[in-house]
């Protein structure tokens, strides 16, 4: 592979970059029209067609708050521009490991889930984190204080 130099521009890279930008802009416009705020930087959603019950269930389509899931002929379709990676479809799904969502926060933490149980556990984790932050807000010196009064290590 030849190394890139400033004069040598990779056209394919540029094309894909501009494509990504255009997609992002389209997405932002669509979501702004719907009055929706995004909490995640990136994400991915997929549906396993082998485990999906299809026309007999359709619960995820009813649950989706932004109408990102719709009924294609014969299967559930996803319009990824509208999906904001919430957990409504996974919570409503009857089967495990059907809808899989991975999402990335702006601070870099990645969250992955495909079962209703995982969603509940994840939410409890998020809440616990927030409570701890809240407590630390009130006690800015608590950590420093604990460090000062740590039990001293005994030598030997």
């Amino acid at each position, binding site marked *: 592979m030849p190394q890139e130099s400033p004069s040598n521009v990779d056209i394919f890279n540029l094309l894909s970059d501009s494509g990504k930008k255009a997609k992002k802009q389209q997405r932002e416009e669509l979501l702004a029209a*719907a*009055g*929706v*705020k995004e*909490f995640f930087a990136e994400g991915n959603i997929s549906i396993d067609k082998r485990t999906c019950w299809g026309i007999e269930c359709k619960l995820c389509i009813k*649950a*989706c*708050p*932004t109408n990102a899931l719709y009924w294609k002929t014969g299967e559930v379709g996803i319009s990824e521009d509208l999906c904001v990676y*919430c*957990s*409504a479809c996974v*919570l*409503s799904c009857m089967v495990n490991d059907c809808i899989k969502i991975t999402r990335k926060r702006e601070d870099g933490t990645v969250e992955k889930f495909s079962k*209703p149980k995982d*969603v*509940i556990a994840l*939410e*409890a984790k*998020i*809440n*616990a*984190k*927030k*409570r*701890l932050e*809240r*407590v630390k807000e*009130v*006690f800015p*010196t*608590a950590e420093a*204080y*604990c460090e000062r*009064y740590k039990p001293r290590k005994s030598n030997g």
Partner: protein
Amino acid sequence: MSPAKFESRKFVSVDPSKCTGCGICEYACSTEKEESRGNPICSRIRVIRMTPFFNFALACRACEDAPCVKACPEKALAQAEKTGIIMVKDKQCKGCDWCVQACPHGGIMIHSDTGKAVACDLCNGEPQCVEFCPEEALELVSSDDEADKKFNATLEKLPAETERLANIAKNKEWNSLLADAEKRGIKVNEKLEALRKKASSKKQK
């Protein structure tokens, strides 16, 4: 100071110097709210155990401009006019977790069985967690400042408390600590038994 939006706004707050982190409030909440079982996973109030000196119990604060209500895409959340309690319309709630992401206190959560959002509703004005708290650390408070005052008061008590404990450890006078623990244990046992009676009477109904 801007005028208060809700006339009789109230929420459950904790005095961290009194709270021992026993978690009875969690059990009291879940036995009151759940029909079948007393599982603290479904509790609206949660305990945080930080150090021996400060423990917390946090619940929904009924904020003046509640971010969870703003974030809800289905308009399933609403605030009561006078008290500011957050009410969930079960038919419209679909279990997307946007209220959970938006809440700054971690006060709203999604129920593990039904998949709908739940928040503290003060049990019709008589919170069971306040009633069952063995140390009387939980209280109904009407403003954020009032809650923060107690938090700040415990910060001032901390140095004296640590010194007392350090002295006990130095002189190895464990008896006073043990007597304290015994007193607390008796109180906790009383409250636990009352809870058990309540749960069994509920089952018979």
